[in-house]
């Protein structure tokens, strides 16, 4: 049984207490932040009346527990934390939280999540608690890892944030017998810059979204991208979040390819689908229209491949391209990725299904 009202818990200098109607003004302050509005159930709260409705809704939920998180010394409400979607039969729940914008970077989320999770395991007998966050929300990812919630995967387009945009979410989970401390990201790869003559390979940053958006509307890049039609800057954010996730999960290493003197964006190179046991990966690259014809793709591919052999221990890198994409074919062959085969009807593009060339390079081939 879920106790009502929720019990008061001490959590490393914080007090987790029941919410009450007198917290309405503090809940308005909690919701008064674009991040909180974008990602949490507090998005509807603008006025004290909204806050009272939100508090009543929380208190009435039969499958959830919400705590006001207070500073032990001042008693001030600085955050909220909750166990929601508690499934007593399945012994599972989800933890969620929001921290007041002016109280962030004090470890409040970490302590509150740890307190709520410990309560869930010890008092409710839960076997598994999940923590989900939009992939762009790096702060929540850090909270999850610090509080013992291991990364398990990325659910694509899981939730609509209310503005008609669906966001990818990381799924983290902690099991009853997992340690409460920091979870190492066992397969994570540290993002590194690589200098390659006049080129500089720089791990993508969120601020690159406008550049990515401009590149993906260039016809030769859009045409060979097997994904859905490019829908603008939100797709750029999502594309970049996937690059970040790639380093974190160890599934992909990716770089923007820049002029080493001016920093101008020339193109993109990645080794994706990394599988460290057999030691394989798949190369992917594009070059902006104005920068083509100068060997940029080949040099970037060579540098990314050398990194993958030397640092990641790969022994084989494949490259696939639509047969009609002859520029990509030339890049692969000139970079030491000989043609190995023709894959019939293996790629669906906007204008239909097409055959692909398979090229590959072995570590022992590389110059």
């Amino acid at each position, binding site marked *: 049984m879920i106790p009502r009202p929720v019990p008061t818990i001490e959590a490393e200098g914080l007090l987790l207490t029941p919410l009450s109607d007198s917290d309405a003004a503090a809940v308005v302050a909690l919701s008064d932040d674009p991040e909180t509005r974008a990602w949490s159930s507090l998005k509807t709260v603008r006025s004290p009346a909204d806050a009272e409705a939100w508090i009543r809704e929380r208190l009435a939920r039969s499958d959830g527990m919400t705590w006001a998180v207070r500073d032990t010394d001042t008693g001030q409400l600085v955050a909220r934390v909750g166990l929601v979607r508690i499934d007593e039969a*399945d012994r599972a729940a989800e933890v969620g939280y929001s921290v007041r914008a002016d109280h962030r970077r004090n470890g409040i989320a970490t302590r509150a999540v740890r307190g709520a999770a410990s309560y869930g395991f010890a008092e409710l007998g839960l*076997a598994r608690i999940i923590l989900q966050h939009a992939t762009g929300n790096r702060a929540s990812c850090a909270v999850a890892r610090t509080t013992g919630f*291991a990364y*398990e995967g990325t*659910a*694509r387009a899981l939730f*609509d944030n209310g503005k008609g945009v669906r966001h990818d979410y990381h*799924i983290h989970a902690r099991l009853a017998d997992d340690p409460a401390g920091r979870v190492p990201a066992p397969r994570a790869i540290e993002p590194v810059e690589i200098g390659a003559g006049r080129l500089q390979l720089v791990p993508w940053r969120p601020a690159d979204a406008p550049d990515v958006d401009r590149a993906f509307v260039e016809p030769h890049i859009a045409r060979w991208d097997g*994904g859905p039609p490019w829908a603008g800057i939100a797709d750029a954010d999502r594309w970049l979040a996937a690059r970040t996730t790639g380093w974190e999960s160890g599934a992909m290493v990716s770089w923007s390819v820049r002029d080493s003197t001016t920093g101008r964006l020339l193109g993109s190179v990645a080794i994706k689908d990394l599988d460290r046991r057999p030691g394989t990966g798949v190369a992917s690259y594009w070059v902006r229209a104005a920068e083509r014809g100068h060997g940029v793709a080949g040099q970037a591919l060579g540098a990314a491949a050398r990194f993958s052999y030397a640092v990641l221990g790969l022994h084989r890198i494949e490259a696939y391209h639509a047969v009609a994409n002859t520029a990509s074919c030339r890049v692969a062959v000139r970079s030491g990725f000989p043609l190995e085969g023709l894959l019939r009807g293996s790629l*669906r593009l906007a204008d239909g299904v097409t055959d692909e060339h398979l090229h590959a390079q072995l570590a022992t081939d590389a110059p």
Partner: protein
Amino acid sequence: MTAIAHEDVPAGRWLLRPPRPAEAAEALAMLTDRDVVQWNPAPAVVDEASARAWLERGRDWSSGGHATFSVVDPVSSRMLGNVSVHRIDREQAFAALGYRVAPWARRQGVATAALAAVSGWSFDRLGLARLEICHAVDNPGSCRVAERAGFRLEGTLRQSFVYGDGHRHDEHLHGRLRTDPVPLL
């Protein structure tokens, strides 16, 4: 939630239709199969009467929370399996899928065809944007079916569900978006 109207959905050589009480004997045989008991248990079903009640529950789409189909051979009318769209959330345009194949209908592509058909129906008729399938990692057959039906592997959930043996098993999470390419079957 709004009720969902009954509908038949073609699935390649087979047909998806709302379950019928007359399928009780076949449903009982399917639900007491060893593999189904382990990986997709319906523990309430122990005889034809409880099988009939299970079919009635599957046939009742009035809550709007699920749409459950029997997979049948349209010629013989024999039941070959079932497929369910459940946890339907119209606001978040989300649902989960589950399926079973009767032991007499395995290795013919029934599950893949049923999943692909019910996915298209869910995107088109329910307006959903994301569909999920979870299956035990120890049940690799389900993984191949999900991949073939266009559901990409998105993660491995640790000890996330109690299966028929009473143990918590790791599960694969697969997702398919409305915007994902339609699988070539």
